[in-house]
């Protein structure tokens, strides 16, 4: 079977997941729907990692993002509310900058996409055929060899953020 002929339709499917989920994530009025859109996007990106023959990263994406970050955000939605006392919705109060801000957001993102896309299409080097898959043992050797300093730094960053989150939670309880 020619695998190369499979790449385009599958890529299109994942791209549709990414774009559709992304638009839901940034446009939906209900934050829960936005989060579901984000999860669809995450699965699309994981599919693209699989398409690039990087299965370890693909499953880490599902494990870390969908398993941890998305659940964390569901808690954030559950525990907060808007000014009308409703939980899980965008604030509906329309102020006078509302329209112009939406317009400028479209401009900012659209213009940036156009400029960067032009640069990407014009200056991107030629792609080489997909390299053989890097095994997990190789990744681990790299992580504990040349990349050991970032590896340790990320554990420090995680520890600091966890400690900071706990500290913020404590202060909240004392104030009550």
């Amino acid at each position, binding site marked *: 079977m020619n695998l190369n002929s499979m790449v385009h339709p599958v890529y299109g499917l994942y791209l549709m997941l990414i774009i559709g989920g*992304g638009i839901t994530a940034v446009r939906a009025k209900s*934050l829960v729907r*936005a989060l579901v859109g984000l999860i669809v996007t995450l699965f699309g990106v994981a599919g*693209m990692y699989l398409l*690039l023959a990087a299965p370890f990263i693909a499953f880490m994406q599902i494990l870390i993002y969908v398993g*941890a970050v998305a659940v964390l955000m569901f808690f*954030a939605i559950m525990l*907060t509310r*808007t000014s009308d006392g409703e939980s899980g919705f965008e604030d509906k109060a329309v102020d006078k900058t509302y329209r112009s801000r939406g317009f400028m957001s479209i401009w900012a993102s659209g213009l940036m996409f156009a400029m960067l896309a032009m640069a990407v299409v014009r200056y991107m080097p030629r792609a080489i055929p997909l390299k053989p898959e890097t095994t997990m043992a190789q990744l681990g050797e790299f992580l504990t060899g040349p990349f050991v300093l970032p590896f340790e730094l*990320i554990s420090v960053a995680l520890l600091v953020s966890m400690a900071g989150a706990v500290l913020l939670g404590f202060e909240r309880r004392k104030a009550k």
Partner: protein
Amino acid sequence: MNYLVMYHLAALALLSLGIYGLTSRKSLVGMLISVELMLNGAGLALVASSRLTPAIDQLGQIGTLLIMGLAAAEATLVLAIILVVSRRFGTTSSASIAILKG
């Protein structure tokens, strides 16, 4: 079309969707969702670049793993901040958080 360009355009779409959401959303949770979109775009661009160019393969994959770790740390901290803001101001709308000395 060049495969590298295809993957980079997908990453770019994620980035600009994230920028749009970050600037147009009013609730802090919505802005956090947009930031996650942008971080995903960065990861996709890194993995695509390392898989489809002669660069070292592990560099991109481990770099993406580190981005995921940072995103998890950031989400944890932002969740705690959102909770404190919600307790103090009664809302998580970014427009109403305008006092420096709470």
